[in-house]
């Protein structure tokens, strides 16, 4: 059961069901898109996911996690 909608803390522990299937689906979603189209797709995807998460503190943690290399 994904925790995303209720957790008030960012989950960075492994949480994706079937990671390989997910990764394949992610790359698949970009198939046939030009680089510009992919660059337009990504923010749409991010916004959809952000809405699913909802919690601003969690999203801020996600920004910080993504910023750390």
């Amino acid at each position, binding site marked *: 059961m994904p925790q995303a909608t209720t957790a008030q803390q960012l989950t960075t522990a492994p949480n994706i069901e079937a990671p390989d299937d997910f990764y394949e689906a992610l790359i698949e979603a970009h198939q046939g898109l030009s680089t510009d189209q992919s660059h337009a797709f990504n923010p*749409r995807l991010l*916004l959809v996911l952000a809405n699913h998460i909802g919690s601003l503190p969690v999203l801020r943690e996600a920004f910080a996690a993504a910023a750390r290399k």
Partner: protein
Amino acid sequence: MIDYQSLRFDYKRHPDQDAAAPVRRPVAVIGAGPVGLALAIDLAQRGIPVVLLDNDNALSTGSRAICFAKRTLEIFDRLGCGERMVGKGVSWNVGRVFFRNEEIYSFDLLPETGHARPAFVNLQQYYVEGFLAERAAGLPLIDLRWKNKVAGTVQHADHVALTVETPDGPYQLDAVYVAACDGSRSSMRALLGLESKGRQFKDRFLIADVKMKLDRPAERWFWFDPEFHRNQSVLLHMQPDNVWRIDFQLGWDADPEEEKKPEKIIPRVKALLGEDAQFDLEWASVYTFSCLRMDRFRHGRVFFAGDSAHGVSPFGARGANSGVQDAENLAWKLAAVLQRQAPDALLDSYGHEREYAADENILHSTRATDFITPKSEVSRLFRDAVLELAKRHAFARTLVNSGRLSVPATLHTSALNTPDADAFEGCMVPGAVAADAPLVRADGTAGWLLQEAGSGAFTAVVFGSGEVADRAARAAAAAGAAAGVPIETVRIPTDEAHALAARRYDARAGTLYLLRPDQHVCGRWRRADAGLVRAALDRALCNA
């Protein structure tokens, strides 16, 4: 019909100009724009004589501020000219947002009924100033001096000395308090060596007011990146007299002098309306804007209000509207201090409250500007992603920002608020502007809560009937009498006819709301007694 734009007001030599020593007046208001006029009227209605100085002898040139918000109209009601504004103005509640050539969604700013005034009326600034000036002319306590330009100022312990230039030469005028309502290029601010600081936006906009018969509803239409004006935004808005405001984003590189020429403007308008469109160009202006404010709105005996104190982008209609709210905030406080109901410290709260409100307006305005004018490629990608998603997803519509339209600030942090001791639901928290609701007056006629509670005094809104409500009403009267400050009372039965009011205020029989003279809530109780109301009154006047 009066052509308010061509109206000129006569300079008249005033006896103060021939006085042997400077004459001292309680309040000088500088600038007879919407803010200065509203302030002068409010003060005069409170019994304070006002000298209103204006460096010109005409009203607004061009339509300029055109959107007057519900709260401003409610204030104009109290100032005796709300009905004229609403009667002449174009009322609107619906906005539509387009991306490229597709409508992505529409919104209703006032989805609920039960308010005397609409979310907005569109009305050219020269009408607003004209109606206010006519109202001011009917108030003997207002001494409006056209072609009186303040050219020098010195602050003293108990007054401000002003040097005023006129066509007959300069004269000296002293004022106990001065309100600088003299606009974004405030000369009073410059004379005191003060600044309004912030952020300038690297973008240019063209305003074109065109006169034409156009069969469209009174709605706000906003385009992001339309086919007829690629990569920029366009706003279309109806004004009275068949005048339409069109606002074209031009980008930073546009040449303002070139863009002002009719031969440049007309093709842009035709691109929007069609090649065959018949219209007359009424007024055009190319502008840039900044979000900025002064560090403090009070400097000794001088108060800054409106654009002199703060500036915002036009998206959101937060300029003139917030200025009128500044005026309302300042008027009752100056009157209370001059009438010795409150100490000078009350005037500090003008700065605190309106600086807080300005920050809120600047925040909204800056965010809208960042959405309309993305500052980087990635910012633009996100902006377009939001617009694309908004076609199908309600969540994305909440992110579209073509201007968060002016609503009054809730003064959460004000020291004049008495914090709740009782439990309440809803948004009528201490610091909020009282919400309107329909009511039945004592004589059986239909009325409105804010108009009944619009005497300009502190007002106790008492809900319910019977002993519990009578006790609350007596508590308010006793508190006012003990403090020597009149408290008006508005009684609202908790019956079917007043269900909306009770819901908006989360009220039960015996609930009492104490409203300040500017209709902000400053305290509320389930079971009030005279001591509680008196303490809240003292707090709201800085007498505690």
